[in-house]
């Protein structure tokens, strides 16, 4: 855990997630203050804007601006949704936030509901982390019993009902309108936009959806002030951020650091490269973000602007580290299979294109590649991108384009020699069963 952390600061594994522990860490002070002082919603949104908190789910959209889109005075129901449908390969931060500090999400959502005039909210939790869903329900019971959510919160005239909803195995539900469809009890197929959820969301009512970590940051921003939060990071990249590090490092896990921290320091926190091997490539922001060569990554700092300048995206902060034992064709093959499997099938370019991408990468990996396959792959991605309702098509295409761009020689070698540049025994040495020291 980082010394500079906010969300994970002071938490002690599974032992300190309950309401009393959160209150002992200063929890619910922000909500109490807002209710006691009847803070105007505009003031809350102004603080958020000053903090330059950017959406932690992947898109990096400024949260304060998003909240200001909600028609607060619109008569009738307005909804709030938390996106904890964390299934982007490499991302596992929201699971730890909900497991170790669920009340900071509840408090953040209550403040959001107050600021936007929402009377009801749902936290949509990834189906595969069912135990975390159960824990969140317990935390909700605690908050309800303490009068922190529900009717007339802390004796005021502010009411906000909050519930947990679980997914059951569909990556696409992390897309915000698919998530709303899923809460409505339907297949998770994304909606065409506009209209955006702020005008037509859950049950057709104005709705704001934010990521778990975004909500979790809100109480801290209220306590320290927007500028205090901003100053932890760097201009245009406010605050701390959780980075989920997986792959070929000694200590995979979540590390909460100030935005703008050099990647090399983050790598060091994660115990450095497993077996002291050489870094080959890094996917810096979840499987959908373009891969970067290791040496490019070593010169980056961990914030939205630096990673974007290097040609990728900070995304959800999921850092997948690959060392020299990795076959980049095999790595891409597995990712391409994932997008093929998870395409919801609604848009033809994505439904057909993701399968096409997978089959071509698969045949290259299996020694059946054809000389013009790389051109074919680039052409297919070009025909998917920008032609679908949601971003899954783009998400499937960006890994293909970037793997070919940075590791094209390895793909060409595969096609020409019908085998891998990295010998199988070397690959095995790099990725055999590995035990975490914290286990």
């Amino acid at each position, binding site marked *: 855990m980082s010394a500079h952390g906010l969300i994970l600061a002071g938490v002690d594994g599974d032992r300190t997630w309950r309401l009393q522990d959160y209150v002992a860490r200063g929890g619910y002070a922000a909500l109490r203050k807002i209710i006691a002082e009847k803070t105007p919603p505009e003031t809350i949104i102004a603080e958020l804007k000053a903090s330059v908190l950017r959406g932690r789910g992947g898109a990096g959209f400024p949260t304060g601006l998003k909240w200001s889109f909600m028609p607060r005075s619109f008569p009738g129901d307005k909804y709030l949704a938390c996106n904890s449908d964390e299934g982007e390969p490499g991302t596992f931060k*929201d699971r730890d936030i909900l497991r170790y500090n669920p009340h900071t999400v509840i408090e953040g959502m209550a403040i959001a509901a107050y600021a936007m005039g929402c009377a009801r909210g749902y936290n949509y939790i990834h189906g595969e982390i069912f135990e975390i869903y159960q824990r969140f329900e317990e935390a909700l019971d605690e908050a309800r019993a303490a009068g922190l959510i529900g009717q007339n919160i802390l004796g005021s005239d502010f009411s906000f009902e909050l519930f947990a909803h679980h997914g059951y195995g569909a990556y696409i539900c992390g897309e915000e309108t698919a998530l709303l469809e899923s809460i409505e009890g339907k297949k998770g197929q994304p909606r065409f936009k506009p209209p955006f959820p702020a005008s037509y969301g859950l049950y057709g009512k104005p709705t704001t959806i934010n990521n778990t970590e975004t909500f979790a940051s809100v109480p801290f921003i209220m306590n320290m002030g927007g500028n205090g939060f901003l100053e932890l990071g760097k201009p245009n990249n406010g605050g701390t951020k959780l980075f989920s590090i997986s792959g070929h490092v000694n200590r995979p896990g979540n590390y909460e650091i100030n935005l703008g921290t050099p990647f090399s320091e983050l790598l060091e926190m994660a115990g450095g490269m497993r077996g002291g091997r050489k870094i080959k490539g890094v996917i810096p922001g979840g499987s959908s973000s373009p891969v970067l060569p290791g040496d490019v990554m070593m010169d980056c700092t961990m914030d939205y602007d630096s990673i974007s300048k290097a040609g990728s995206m900070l995304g959800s902060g999921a850092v997948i580290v690959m060392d020299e034992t990795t076959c980049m064709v095999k790595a891409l093959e597995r990712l391409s299979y994932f997008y093929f499997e998870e395409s919801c099938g609604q848009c033809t370019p994505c439904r057909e294109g993701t399968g096409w991408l997978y089959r071509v990468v698969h045949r290259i990996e299996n020694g059946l590649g054809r000389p013009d396959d790389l051109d074919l792959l680039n052409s297919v991605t070009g025909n998917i991108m920008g032609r679908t309702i949601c971003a899954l098509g783009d998400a499937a295409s960006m890994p293909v384009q970037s793997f070919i761009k940075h590791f094209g020689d390895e793909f060409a070698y595969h096609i020409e020699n019908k085998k891998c540049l990295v010998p199988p025994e070397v690959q095995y040495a790099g990725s055999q069963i590995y035990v975490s020291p914290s286990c």
Partner: protein
Amino acid sequence: MLSQESLQQIDREIAKYPSDQKQSAVMAALRIAQVEKGWLPRDLIEFVAAYLEMPAIAAYEVASFYNMYDLEPVGRHKITVCTNLPCALSGGVHAAEYIKQKLGIDFNETTADGKFTLKEGECMGACGDAPVLLHNNHKMCSWMTTEKIDQLLAELENK
């Protein structure tokens, strides 16, 4: 068709949503039905749909869209192993291969005694714990070395 206890659980889920939006509880209701019956035969999906006052086809669409619902019988213990890239880099594929060998089955197969079904999973959002597997959808097992796999299968064998 479902026990009183399951129906009570479903009622608790229905109460989370506006009174005219019962359908919102379908994901939880199908999950609860599956936990009781082991899998989701068509008449069970129809029962859940009727209970929630929604068209049967709409409930079937949900059951067939989300991959943790089982539309065919599975063994008493369903093991789902994540083999996606971050897990594969830390032994996820090897863990799956080891289980295949031990149980003598491939993905999407069930052992002859009906005890175990093996599935290949997609990202479970726990990549830092790789290799990771799910037992019967709800229990996540982390850092599954061959020793821990041996131990888990031995425990489940008698359950």
